[in-house]
């Protein structure tokens, strides 16, 4: 389920939702194996059960920057703040990577426009329309305002 109240938007859940698309990249690169990837995917919908050691191992950078035992809002603030800033301004880790490989990673807010099938939706972000997946989150409804990261729904912003 998507979270419509910040009460349910926990630190672990937020790290998982923002971080899993990056885990997919590491899987594509062969930096983690299928067994590890499948293990992480087994926590979809039950992120709170994910051991903190696993969180620290796979979402290392945000945990180091945000710190331990913070809130979902702290994670939002990091991704919409420093993370986006570094990509847009080509700073920090993103200073020397070509923009083609970075721009997809900017977290953005949009409106759900259309359901394409059981997994994909069209979301309007500014003057663009993008296809997004709800793989790591839950159902969304047409008209919902959502946060997206790397083509995945992170959360509902109602």
């Amino acid at each position: 389920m998507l979270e419509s109240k910040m009460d349910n938007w926990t630190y672990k859940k937020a790290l998982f939702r923002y971080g899993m698309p990056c885990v997919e990249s590491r899987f594509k690169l062969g930096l983690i194996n299928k067994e590890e990837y499948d293990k992480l995917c087994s926590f979809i919908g039950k992120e709170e059960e994910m051991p903190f050691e696993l969180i620290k191992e796979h979402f290392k950078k945000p945990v180091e920057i945000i710190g331990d035992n913070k809130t979902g809002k702290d994670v939002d603030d990091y991704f919409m703040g420093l993370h986006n800033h570094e990509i847009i301004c080509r700073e920090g880790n993103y200073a020397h990577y070509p923009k083609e490989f970075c721009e997809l990673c900017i977290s953005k807010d949009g409106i759900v426009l259309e359901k394409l099938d059981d997994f994909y939706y069209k979301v309007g972000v500014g003057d663009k329309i993008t296809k997004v997946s709800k793989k790591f989150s839950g159902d969304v409804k047409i008209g919902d305002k959502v946060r997206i990261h790397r083509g995945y729904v992170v959360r509902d912003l109602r």
Partner: protein
Amino acid sequence: MCLAIPGKVIEIKEDGSCIVDYETEKREAKIFTDDIKLGDYVIVSQKIIINKVPEEKARAFLNEIKNA
């Protein structure tokens, strides 16, 4: 590190889709432009090719990120 990973187009199908090879796995993606050919390096988001990347740039990036 949050980055988009380029893959290599290894098969183009008649229905306008293609197979993209990431070395560790192969995934299907839809082509919406007419400039994609076999061997091209592309960035895919949600089964859609959103960007074509010069081979040299893609290879350099992949080498760098794998050794980071």
